[in-house]
């Protein structure tokens, strides 16, 4: 114990006091030690509400993942049966791979597009703020409304096919949303369209923090455009990349509204995701136990990726 080796040392005692003594908050102490303002019980209503709505409800839901409960009436505890059923059901395995495809696809494409636009808008453009507003517009729209617009665009009688016919590629026209091969790509387009503006503003904020002098110095030293981007700009915006990708992946793994409005998970399950399957199992098909088990799998995947992303960010020396 350090306390016995260095008796009465300030350094050994200060952190203990900060942790244990109830807050004598009136006397201002130096920053970073046992400073305390406000009463601890001020936090109680917030903690209680979050605990009830997030943890208790989720915990109960998690318990039912191990039962055969239908949503009403009695149930039996069935152990891991629901989880085994998930990995035997091709629709649910397909939903799992669709979810990963959409999450990573939309993050990758949305971030690349956002970065390219942000780089384009960076510095000296006269109309950069108007352009930024225009590119950001889709972000504020409801996913439901956005999905309806795109549903028409991809409709068989819609603008996309009309355009293909107009340029003489009419044989390429197809019912995009009803085509098992193409439906998932239409969902991806919609997700990228609505998330690009978000990635763009995060990158713009990151780029604004790169001093012009450093870029100039690199240019004078003979670095070309790509070298300047790789060695000067990219390291400086790494935190922005981390934020944009983490949020994008967490959002992407939960994608629900646009799919329900666009394809409803069809055709033949080609665009089912974990979130739409959870909803269908638990609310529409009266298989609450199975839906809860699937939701637990989804929660685990989200947590894994969120933690992984945090770790990757931490390894950055600049942080």
């Amino acid at each position, binding site marked *: 114990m350090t306390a016995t080796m260095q008796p009465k040392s300030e350094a050994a005692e200060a952190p203990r006091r900060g942790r244990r003594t109830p807050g004598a908050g009136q006397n*201002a102490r130096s920053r970073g030690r*046992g400073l305390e303002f406000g009463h601890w019980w001020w936090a109680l209503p917030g*903690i209680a509400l*979050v605990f009830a709505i997030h943890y208790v409800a989720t915990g109960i*839901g998690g318990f039912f993942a191990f039962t055969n409960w239908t949503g009403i009436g009695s149930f039996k505890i069935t152990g891991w049966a629901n989880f085994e059923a998930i990995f035997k059901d091709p629709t649910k395995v397909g939903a799992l791979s669709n979810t990963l495809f959409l999450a990573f696809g939309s993050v990758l494409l949305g971030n690349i597009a956002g970065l390219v636009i942000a780089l384009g808008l960076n510095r000296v453009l006269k109309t950069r703020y108007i352009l930024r507003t225009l590119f950001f517009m889709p972000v504020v729209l409801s*996913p*439901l*409304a956005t999905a309806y617009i795109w549903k028409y665009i991809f409709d068989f009688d819609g603008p996309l096919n009309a355009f293909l016919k107009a340029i003489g590629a009419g044989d390429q026209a197809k019912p995009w949303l009803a085509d098992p091969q193409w439906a998932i790509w239409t969902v991806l387009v919609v997700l990228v369209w609505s998330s690009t503006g978000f990635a763009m503003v995060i990158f713009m904020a990151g780029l604004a923090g790169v001093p012009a002098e450093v870029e100039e110095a690199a240019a004078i030293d003979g670095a070309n455009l790509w070298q300047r981007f790789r060695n000067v700009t990219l390291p400086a915006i790494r935190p922005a990349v981390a934020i944009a990708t983490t949020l994008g992946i967490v959002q992407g793994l939960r994608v629900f509204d646009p799919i329900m409005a666009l394809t409803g998970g069809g055709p033949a399950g080609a665009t089912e995701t974990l979130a739409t399957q959870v909803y269908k199992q638990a609310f529409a098909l009266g298989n609450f136990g199975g839906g*809860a088990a699937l939701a637990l799998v989804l929660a685990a995947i989200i947590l894994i990726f969120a933690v992984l992303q945090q770790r990757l960010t931490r390894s950055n020396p600049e942080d």
Partner: protein
Amino acid sequence: MFRYTKLTLLREVGLWALALLFLTPFYFLVTTALKPDTELFTTSALAPPKSPDFSNFIDVLTATGNSNVVMGLVNSLIITAGSIVGLIALGSITGYVISRSTRRWSKGAYYLFLVAIILPGQLGAVPLYMGARALGLTGSAWGLIVLYTGMLLPLSIFLYANFFRGLGTDYEEAATIDGASKSQIFSKVVFPMMAPATGTVTIFAGLIVWNDFFTSLIFLGGSANQTLPVAMYYYIGSLVSQWNSIFAIVIVSMIPILALFLFAQKRFIQGFSGGLKG
């Protein structure tokens, strides 16, 4: 080096072309909504209407029952405003206490909120619904306000707590020396300083609650109090390929949020880019 050159002009023109391409969905949205029924299937999907009229919008605004759009607008407004007030009140004070306290539980509480942000809502949805029904929170606007406040509170607390961590305690110390009580310090000194975080919370919560479909569909199910997205969903559910009518209601539902965005776009974008640095 960073002067306006011919190359910059080229970049600017190129980005405008990209922006117009990016926003073509809005062109189809507006032109289709203005087409009368007779033109919908006779004109090309790419062409603007020959004789634009607003009859689709009149139909939308006068719809009754489940798809009463005006009522949905009012309900959405009440629920969004109420949730924002709840999230600012509870989020600011909780975020303040957990970021200023150095005791062990405050770190635990911080992670409690952090994990709650990423838990998928569907797992708790059915137990939550049963609990809310038992407490009489379903089917009413204020019940939904309580639910949204609870659902988004982790995000709100997280934003406030991160804001405080970057803020020194000098002002609080000064106010303490001047003899202000703890509640005075919070309401008169700390809360006004939180304005940027409050702005970010307002924007995030406002957007999420205003645009949310799933929660209000389930928790207001069967009642006369529908929110705008649910009213839109029911209205569209009664139409098959009537894209002119569908787009009229999509436009009506978008106008409030787009108007607010264009009016306060700087704050919106600052909120998104600044509020998330954690």
